[in-house]
Every structure is written in C-alpha cells, then in structure tokens.
C-alpha cells in the first residue's frame, strides 16, 4: 500500500539521519586508557570513604544516592498510577461482545511448586540486596527477585488477591526510612544520604559501609513491593 510505503520510507530516511549522528559518535569514540577523573576518585577513595567492595553500589547508593532516590520514586509513582488507574478500570465496564472467559485452571505442579519455591525466591532476593555492597547485585536486583516470587504466586493462583495494604505499607515505610536516613545524613554526617552515619567498618564484611546495607535493603524492599504492586494491579484487572 502506497501510504505505508511512503511512511516507512520517511521513517527510514529520518533514521538514516539519526544513524548518521550515531555513526559519527561511534567513529569519534576512543575507549579510555586510564580512568578519568571521576572514576579514578571512586577507585581510589571508595574503599576508605564508603567502605563498599562493590564500587557501583557505592556510587548508586551514596555518591549518586539522589539519583537512586529519584529512581525509586519513579517506580513508586508508576506503581501508584498503575494501581490507581487499573483500580478505576475495575468499575463495572463490561462491554458487550467480549464475554468474560472462564479462567483455565492452573496445573497442580505449578501451584505446589510455587508454594515451595516462593519462600526460597524471597530469601534469595533478600540475600542479594543485603549483600549489595559486597557483591554484584543490590536493591534493584533483589527487589526484582522478590517480585518474581510474587509473580510465581500470581501465576499459580490468578485469583489470589494480595493485600495491597500490606504492600503499600512496606513500600511507604521503606521509602520513608530511605528519605529519613538521607536526612539524618544531612543532619549528622557530611550531607544528604551520606553513609557515614554508621561506622564504615571493615571492607568486605556484611556489617560495613555505614548505612549502605540498610539503604540497599530498604531499596530492595521498596522496589520489590513496587514491582509486586504493579504486577498485582495488572493481574487483578478485569479483561479490558
């Protein structure tokens, strides 16, 4: 069809131009041989200042903690909005022509398996975010793992209703604590979200790096509850 051809051609043309921009970026790109100023600072100072083995964690939670706070807020409001909007959808909006289909019963294996697996998954999630300052992983990854546990439950029993209230409370309290710790840093340490509220401890131990484990755990809880909340809201929505 002609118009579609034209449309696609224009799209290709535009993207060719955008691609040209990218190509010139790529062509001009030279990998650094040395760490730049910022990265060098992190490499040299993280261990003694922040006390995390995982430098990325130090950056995410402390140096760029404000970003992370913003990021969990992004999730917070998207979860809130998704929940709110889909709750509105739950008003009776049965449109003729799309009759409610009976749900297919879920297999025995899945429901049993899920009951077994979920606690393990949750534990794994917690482990990931508690150790975020030492090993790869952290709040987000841990949160996502927790959420996948919830997902499993949902898959096993689509009609299961989570306590939104509980999720909300966890989410809010962890958020509050996060901000609260940040403010405490402002009051009692070097600045907002400064991790040196608590002693730095020894590099590589679980209880080290000041408040980072605490914050990352809170982030984990918060992200986990937010993901869960989103999934739950979506799954509870009647067929549109």
């Amino acid at each position, binding site marked *: 069809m002609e118009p579609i051809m034209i449309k696609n051609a224009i799209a290709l043309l535009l993207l060719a131009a955008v691609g040209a921009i990218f190509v010139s970026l790529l062509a001009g790109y030279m990998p650094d041989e040395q760490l730049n100023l910022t990265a060098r600072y992190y490499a040299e100072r993280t261990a003694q200042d922040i006390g995390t083995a995982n430098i990325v964690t130090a950056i995410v939670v402390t140096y760029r903690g404000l970003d992370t706070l913003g990021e969990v807020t992004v999730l917070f*409001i998207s979860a809130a909005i998704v929940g709110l909007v889909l709750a509105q959808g739950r008003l009776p909006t049965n449109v003729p022509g799309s009759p409610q289909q009976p749900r297919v019963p879920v297999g025995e294996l899945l429901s049993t398996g899920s009951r077994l697996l979920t606690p393990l998954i949750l534990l794994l999630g917690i482990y990931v975010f508690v150790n975020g300052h030492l090993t790869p992983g952290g709040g987000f990854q841990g949160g996502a793992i927790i959420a996948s546990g919830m997902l499993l439950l949902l898959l096993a029993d689509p009609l299961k209703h989570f306590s939104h209230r509980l999720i909300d409370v966890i989410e809010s309290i962890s958020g509050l604590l996060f901000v609260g710790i940040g403010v405490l840093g402002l009051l009692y340490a070097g600045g907002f979200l400064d991790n040196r509220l608590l002693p730095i401890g020894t590099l590589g131990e679980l209880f080290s790096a000041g408040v980072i484990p605490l914050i990352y755990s809170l982030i984990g809880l918060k992200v986990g509850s937010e993901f869960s909340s989103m999934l739950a809201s979506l799954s509870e929505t009647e067929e549109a």
Partner: protein
Amino acid sequence: MVSPLYIIAVALVAAFLLGLLKEERRGLAYSVTLVTLALMSWISANWLWLFISTDAVPVEIYTAGTAPPFAINLRMGLVEAALTLLINLTGLISGLAMKDSLLRQGRRAMAVWLVAVMALSGIVLTRDMFNMFVFFELAVIATAGLVLISEHIRNDGLTLAAGFKYMITSQFISTFLLIGIIFAYHATGTLNIDGMANTSLVLLNGGSIAFFLMFIAIIAELKPFPANGWALDIYESADPAFSALFSAATGAAALYAADKLLLIGGAEWLPIATGIGIVTFVAANLLALPQTHDRRLLGYSSIAQTGLILVVLGQRDILGEHTLFIAGGLLLSHAVAKAGLFWLSGLVAGRELNAWAALRSHPLLVFAFVTFICMLTGLPPFPGFYAKWELIHLLAGEGRIALLGLILFSALIEAGYLFRWFGYVMKRESPAEPVDTAPHKTAAVLVAVIAAWGLSFLWGELAGALFGRGNILLALPLLFALSFLLLDPLPAWLKNTLAIAGMVAWFYLTYTEYDPLRMIFAAIFLIGGALTLLASYHAHGKRIGFYPSAMLMYAGLAMLIRATSTFDFFVAWELLTVGSYFLILRGKHSEPHALSYILFSLGGAFMILAGFALAAQGAPHFSLASLQELAQPLAPWVFLLLAIGFMTKTAAIGLHIWLPGAHAEAETDVSPMVSGILLKAGLYGLIMLLLTMGRQNFYGVDLVNAMLWIGAITALIGNLLAIFQEDAKRLLAYSSIGQMGYAMFGLALMNHLGWLMALMFVINHYVYKSMLFLAVGGVAKRTGTREMYRMGGLITLMPLSFIATLIGIIAVSGVPPLSGFGGRWIFYNAILTSEARLPMIILFLAGPIAFLYLFRLIYTIFLGQLKDEFRRVKEAPFWIILPQMIYVAILLVVAVVPGLVLRHVDAYLDQFFPNGGLSWDGMIITSDFGYWNPIAIMIIVGVIFMTLFSWLLFVNRRAQKVKQFNIVFSAERPFRPETTHFAWNFFAPYRKALGFLTLPLVTLFWSTMTDFLHTAGDLTRRFYTGNGQTYAYHLLGFVIIVYLFGMGIQP
C-alpha cells in the same frame, strides 16, 4: 537557612506517608499534601528572601558528604530560589484548585502530584546532568500519570491519547538525552554541569555531538515548533489546574534546564537556541489564531511564550547581565498569567472561547482575566513590559533587527488572539451555565492576580535599581486610575466627582511645568477630559469598569505630556492605549471594532518601541530630546517607525480602518473622549517627533513631504467617506479622520503657521468634535438609533442639541465667524510659503466636501419630517447637554478672541520657526500675507444678521407655526413622514460621481492580511494530525534539522 534538599526530602516523605494512610482518609491526605507544598514553598521563599535582602552568594549543597563532581550537588541561588518558589507555589495553588479531583482520586494521586512538583524543583536545583535526567523522567512520568488520572474526570479517552503521545515523545527524548549524557561524560570525565562547562565540552572530540543530543533533548521538553503536537493535546485535555502547573512550572523548569545546557554549549549554540525560540514563538502564535478551544489556545500561547524566553536565553551574548532581568520578567509574566488563565478556565463550564462570556457577571474575574492578558501581552506595568523594553532595546542596539521585527510581529499576533478573546468575554452572549465560583478555585485565580501585581511592583523596583527607571506602579496618575478599581463598588456619580476632582487637581499641581505647547495638550487632556466627564453624570448605578478604564486612559495622557525619556513616553502611550481600548469595548456592538483598535494601536506602539530602541542604540537612557542628535543612516529609519506609530493613532489613511467603528460604537460619553481627546495623543507624538527630528531623507524621499501627502489624502478620503455614512456617529468618526489629516498636513508643512494651524485644529477639534459626539450621542440615546434617516425633525424636541450641532457644524466647516475659520485662515496663510502644491490641491478638494456631510448631519437629524415613533422624545439628559453648552460658549469665545491661546503658542513657536509668525495687534491678527480681525467679523456678521432677523420677526410677528404636514406636496398632503423625509443615500449624485474613491481598498487590504495569517495558521496547524506517531516524525525531523544547522555552524 533550611537546606534546599528539604524541598525534595519533604515532598518525598509526604508522598511516602500518603501511602501509609488509609484510602478513606482523603481529607487528611489532602491536608498533608497542601501542608507539604506550603512547606516547600516556604523553604524556597526563605531562600529567595535571603538572596533579595542580602548580597548572599549562591550556595552549593553537597550530597553524600562528597564534593562535586564526585557526588551530586545542588545549587541554591537567586534564580533557583525564585524558580522553585514559582514551581512550589504553582503546585500548591493548583493543588488547591484541583481539590475536588484530588479528593476523588485519593492519596496516590496526591503523592504523584507532590512528586511532580518536587521533580520540577529538582530540575532547577540540580547541577548534575544525569540527576537532571532522573528528575526529568520523574516529571515526565508524574505528568503522564496525572494526565492519565484526570482521564477519570472527563472519561472520554481524549486525555489518554494525549498522555500516550507525550510518552512516545519522551521516549525519544530520553534516548537522546542518555546517549548525549554518556558521551559527554566520556569526553569530560564528569557529569557535573559546571564541570562540563569548564572543560568546554563542545570543543572536545565528539563533544559537540554529545552536547547536541543533550541540548536537543532538553529543547524538545520546551515543546518547540514543530515537535510539540503532543503538548497541545495535553493542554487541551488535561485538568486545567494541572495544565497550569504544566505550563508555568514545567515550562520554567525546562527553560532553566536549557539555560544550564547553554552554559555548557557556549556561544556557538546561542544562535541555534535563538532560532528555535523565534520559530516557535512565531509559529505557535500563528497557529493559535484559528483556535476556538480555550485550553488549546492557552497551550499554543504557552509554547509561544516559552519560545520567546528561549530567544532571550539565546541572545545572552548581547543581553549579558540583563538576561536574568529580561528572561525573568518574561518567564514570571508568562507563568503567573498562564497559570491564572488555566485556573480561570477551570471556573468556566464551556470549552469554546465564547463560553468565557460567563465571566462577565463577576467583575473580579473579569479583572483577573484582564490582568492576565495584559501581563501576557507585556503591557505596563507588568514585568513583561520592562523585559520587552530592554530586550528590544538591546537587540536594536546590536543591530539584530530581523529578530526584533519577528518578535514584535509575533507579539502582535498574540495580542490579537488574546484581546479577541477578551472581546468575547465582554460581548458574547453569556452561556447558560454559570461560572463555578467554588472558593478554592476562585482563590487560586485571585492569588495569581495578586502575584501579577506584586511582581509588577517588584519588577518596577528592579528596573529602578538596574536602570534607574521609575517604578511605573508608583506613578501618581496610574495609582489614581488603579484606585478606581477599589472604588468600583461606589455609585457612579461619586466616582465621577472624584475623577473630575482628581484630573483638575493634577492639572493644578503640574501646570507650571508645561511650556505653551504642552499646555495646550495638558489643558485638553485634563481640563478637557474633566469637562467631558461631566456628561458621565447622566449614568446611573455603578458603571462597573468604566472609571478604571477611563482613568487609565487619562493617566496615560497625563503621563504622556510629562514624559521626557523615551521609556516614560512609551509607558504612557501603552497605558492610554489600553485604557481607551477598555473604554471603547464598553460599547454595545463594539467588539470587532475595539479589537481592530487595539491591534492597530499595539502595532503602532510596537513601531514606536522599535523606533525608540533603534534610536537609543543600546543606551539605557534616552531622552526624547536626544532624538535630534541622531544622524544618517539611522535617523530616517527611526523617524519612519515613529511616524507610522503615531499615525496609527491619528488614523492616517491606510491605518484608519479601526477608527470609525471604534468611535461610533463607543458609549455616548466615551465617543467624545476617544475622539476629542485621545486622537490628540497621536498628534502630540507627531509634534514631539517633528520638533526633535525635523526633516529626514529616506532614500531620497523627504519623509515630511510624504507625511504631507498622507495628511492630504487622509483629509480627502476621510471627508469623502463621511458623506456616505448613514450612521451619525460614524459620520463624525470619518470626519475625525479627515480632520486629523488636516492637522497632520499642517504639521508636515514644517513652518510656523502650519504648526499654528495644527494646534488650532487640536483645540478646535477637541471642542467641536466632543460637542458633536455628545449631541449626536444624546439624540441616539433618546431615539435608540444612530441611523440618521430614521430620525428627522427633532429640532423642536431637542432644541439644545440642535443648537450645539448647529454651532458645531459651522465651526467645523470653517465658515466665518466661528473659530473654524481661524484654522482655515491660518491654513491658507501657511501653505502660501510651501512648495508642496499637489497635496494642497487634494486638500482643497477635501474642504468643500466637509460641508456636505455636516449639512447632512444636521438636516437629517433635526430638520425635515418628524417620525411618529419619536413624537414623545425628550431633550437629551441634562448632563449630556451641559458640556455641550459649555463647548458652545468656548467656541464663541475662541472665535472672538483666538489670541487668548494662540498668541502664546505663536510666540512659543518662534523658537522653532522664527519666521512667518503672526503679528498680534490688539484684536487684529496679520500674517505675512493676510489679515484677520475676528471681532470685526463677528460684529459685522452679527449686526447684519440681527438686523435682518429682527425685521423679519417684526414683519411676520403674527405668523403661526404650521403643522408638520402642512406642506404642498403634489396636491396631496403626505401623512407618512417616513416617505417624506428625504434622508437616505443623501448625496446619491456624489456617490455616482466619486463613489469609486470610497471603495474599501484599505479595509480589503487589512482583511486580506488577517485572513492570510488566519488561513496560514489554519493550514499549518493541520500538520498536527493528532497521530502520536506523526508527532514522533515531527520530533525526529526537528532533531535532524537542528543538527544540520547546529553542525553547520560549528567551526
């Protein structure tokens, strides 16, 4: 000081706290929200106060206890404090205005609201590029979320579609932004904005592309034309209180972000920003023209304003330290006014512009609306005015004329649709659905109004501090005029007395300052104005809105003659323009005419502004007197611009089409004000111009000579058009055009007598045109029509009006012995020394024609056959007659002793034109060529007249007045006055012979122009297809075009 971080922290704490509340505790949640927003505003306000009251330097706020660039830092300075205050306050007030919907949505919506406001503050505060990205994303999601939520209210799916389009666009934007950020980081080794700026990112390898990507992403958030279809849909469909935030706060934040980026980009990118800004400003205003949906219109206007501010940011290379003052003035004007208008739109039920007519029943809301549109248009005393003044001046000083022209052109379009809208509010049929006056919604609007005036004061003070200008709001006449806003609940007669007393008192206070030339104008503006106001005693009730408007006009006039600097002059000019516009708009059917009046006036005002700016050449102060020091090649341009500006006011041919409607449709006592008094402002301007600049040669054309021609043609066409009018007030209005042509001609003669004649015209025209307008207005009031042919025979019923008209037309026509003759006599003497003979001939043609329309005026109204429906008509009200009688007395006195005034002026003119003055010998006046003895003429004519009259009376002492139909009429006695009153198409032969000269070519020209603009806007806007995908194409196309331009200018 409370750390600005608390703005963010408090909002987040509150947002998370809301999650803890039970869904049902909505009232509590709402209180928490408002308190939080108030707290955030308080923090910002605290900082703002610190920076205003002391010389505190901006404060850097570190996070994570680590110095930048290794951790994110925020900065709180004057600008940040002001912007966050703006954002938080807008959030607070919008939250208030959205009370119903927030309460219905519950705590989660409130949390989103808080986050949105916080994110915008974050954009302003942060000095870290990636952090800015996070805040932008937060703002985007919160915005999309709020749009999605407000869908619940409208439930028509429109909002949804708009929000989705927004999300599509922001996906593209964030991709570009992220890529840009990472490559910028790679090039500079830092994410800190100041760090990037210090390492001159754009000069580094790959740095300029990285910068381009960041830049274009932030620019795209400003909704530049054409990549802004999504934004308009949001404006149109979202909750108005949200749109207020979106327009005012998001706009402000994004602009500041762009400003930060320009810091990185350096001088090379300034032209690009300017280009995008000006294209957006022009295009958005053009596209706003055909809009009928109020919120979409506001959306276009928002985009346009943002474009303008971007232009200012892009011009920082020449604006230098004043960038802040200018951009701030424009931004705050835009933010406050636009937020106010959006909140106001929440009160109006209908979405058509017409529906706003519902506001009319609430004077306070009308005042709010007026405040907002004046603020947007950049009229004094609002901040935008100061900003525009400085902007235009600095642009002109650097010779960026094209940009200057585009800005003014676009601003005029903007004024066009805004004032058109105001016309709808005042004049269109009020819709059935009333205005929603819920206190929380109204309060929001009123806060905006207060903010508007507060900012005006502040900017006045700032202008004082920066440029040593007086605060407009402290000008006594303006304050006096504004005080009538508060007095408006008083009865009209009381206000009238106050107004008259005020004007006379002001004259008394200032009269020693005026030289004779100014004295004439001062007397006409102030004493003459007071005299005209006598007629206003006839009005009953409160006459809401009349006195503020009228006094605003008079304040402008009073300030105009005292102005010595171009700034003061222009302020006064704008004030009188706006005041008179409001006055004119009060007429029953004056909506379209008031609109064309304000458009022509503002267009003229912009010419004047451009002229002044060009003349000043960047100097912060420019006195009117310094105009004479201008030299080629600048001078003729300045002259041309100023002359056109002033001639708009005097309604010179080509620029005259606003006048007839405006003067004719105005209220009875307003017509004399706008005709008799206001037109003189234009003449005053021309006098000022010619006094200082004299003759100018423009590519071989002597501009004064051109003016001579224009004056003559104006006189001819004005008079010619007057004779074909059926509407009495229109006839007078066209006559004014002609008269102003005469006056202009006199000035352009550039000799002593020419000027004397012009000044004589100034006085005479004031007296007789005021008188005639009052007389005709009184008749129209009694008969309920202005169509002359429907009247007739009113002489016996309205004898005093008749006398006034009779004296008036004798005076206008220049027949001796009344004062009009003096003008003619001086005129003939004046032209004898002039070489410009052809225009004189045209003027000769015009002279006798005046006679025709004047006769028609008096005949068709007062003579001929009285109509049945008017048999019980009474004389016009006392208060309308009284000033007429005073004018009659004045005319007679001036006729006998013209020297009373003219002598002084004549002597005064000697300093400019030493030769060719008159000599005054007792009662006898002689010129180089002729001789004039007004008293003798009066006596001779009087004696002959009285002799014959008394004889005739004696002879016919027994004569009885016969009945109306006692005339011989083809052996029948007519009993239908309608068919017997020969009045319609009175000068049919003239029309047959010369009608071709009255073809409405000028009207056709201007209407074609406006149609063209309208159509252009209407066609262009069709490229906003409504398809979100198409908008993405627009965005990408925009990115590529800017890229090509941007890279094209790179070294």
